[in-house]
């Protein structure tokens, strides 16, 4: 009988000790729960802060978009200006100096003894066809000298003599083709 009493007492002590262990462990669990709650609160607050930032950034973006959209008519005008300017640049490059070369050629080649009897210029092929006249061998020599003058040949990329004829009346006809 005393042995039973001793056993029960032993069991009670063990139960009390285990209960104490449980309480201590609950405290640990509570601490873990509290830490988790704090961490979550921190995470939530950070998330809320960044969400606010995203909202603010989006509002700024929308405002900037609205500003830009309100300026689109001006942008259109500028684009049209550049488009027109580029078109004119292309056209000017194509036109280049076709007519000024014609003027130079006319003024340079016209002398008392030489002249141009026929002249054509094609803007699209940039080719000149010119028929020069010289009324004597002497003036023809002067004409040839002139044609080889760098001042005269400068604007041309190529220079070809197509034909040379001499009439019965002594007039030399020199047909040339020049590309500018």
């Amino acid at each position, binding site marked *: 009988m005393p042995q039973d009493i001793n056993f029960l007492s032993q069991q009670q002590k063990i139960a009390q000790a285990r209960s104490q262990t449980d309480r201590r462990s609950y405290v640990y669990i509570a601490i873990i729960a509290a830490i988790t709650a704090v961490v979550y609160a921190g*995470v939530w607050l950070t998330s809320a802060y960044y969400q606010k930032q995203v909202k603010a950034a989006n509002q700024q973006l929308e405002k*900037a978009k609205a500003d830009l959209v309100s300026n689109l008519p001006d942008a259109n005008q500028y684009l049209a200006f550049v488009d027109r300017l580029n078109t*004119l640049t292309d056209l000017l490059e194509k036109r280049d100096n076709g007519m000024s070369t014609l003027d130079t050629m006319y003024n340079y080649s016209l002398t008392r003894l030489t002249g141009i009897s026929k002249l054509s210029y094609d803007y*699209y092929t940039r080719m000149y066809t010119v028929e020069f006249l010289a009324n004597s061998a002497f003036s023809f020599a002067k004409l040839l000298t002139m044609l080889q003058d760098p001042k005269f040949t400068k604007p041309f990329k190529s220079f070809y003599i197509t034909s040379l004829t001499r009439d019965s009346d002594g007039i030399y006809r020199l047909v040339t083709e020049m590309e500018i």
Partner: protein
Amino acid sequence: MPATPSDEQQKKGPLGLELGFDLDVSKLPTKNFLIVSLLFFVGLAAFVMMVIVPTIRGIFTNIDAIAATNQELATFKEKLANLQSVLTNSDYTESSKLNQILFEDNPYVQAHYNIVDLLDRYNLKRTRFEYSPGLIATPSADFVTLTSESAIARYQAAEDSESYTIYMVVNGTFKDVIAFVTDIERYAPYNAVTYVEISNTLLGEVTAQLEISVFYHQTDVNATIETDLPEINSGAQETLAKLDDFVIPDFSNLYNSDFTGRDDIFSSITPQEGLTPDDQATADETQEVISDELLLELYNGTLW
């Protein structure tokens, strides 16, 4: 020292199994605690995985979104600043002059006025005048010997830009013809002498077959917020510098009788009293039809 019975007991587990180490049963948690703690940790793990981790992911997503938005915002602000900058740029102030040189609509009346004015100035006699709205199937084929290379180039040019072609045969001195063809290109609206064929009659006069193309450009642009503003390149800068070389006649009174030497036959028309709105509409319509005919006449050059 021999082992006590309690020590023996401690080496065995609750089921009497040999554990191989000392087990203090009094330090073991209870079954209830084990169940509660198991549920707690499972719940904690679920909370971390399903709430905290997604929230943290959301934070990083937001950070990325802020960075992307700020970048886009910076781009928009830069575009706006660029636009303000180019609109106040001295180059852009030339746009009105540019529009006066390269017209948006077909400037046939203005071009016609310049040509007639210059022909008169250089005492050149017109013996033939033709107009063509385009470059395809040109009437100039009647009198201009074109190479196949030229024909191809013409066809391509017709695709690249809008133009209006005037063909003419004029008589005058060689010098005046040269002066005319070099001068006409300086005048706005923008034009190019696209074909010249001068034949010397050896009588002090030449006959010149001329083809003048008057160019215009209809812009078709539509800016969006994504559109980048183009820069004005060096070639275009050179063009801007050349704008001052053009002669820009004042065409503001082009349709006035003082300018054209013709009376506006409609200026004296006044609405009749007692007309019903329908009658007035019919009268207006008639006037419009006649106006178109007048324009056609202007176009054909018969009024000049």
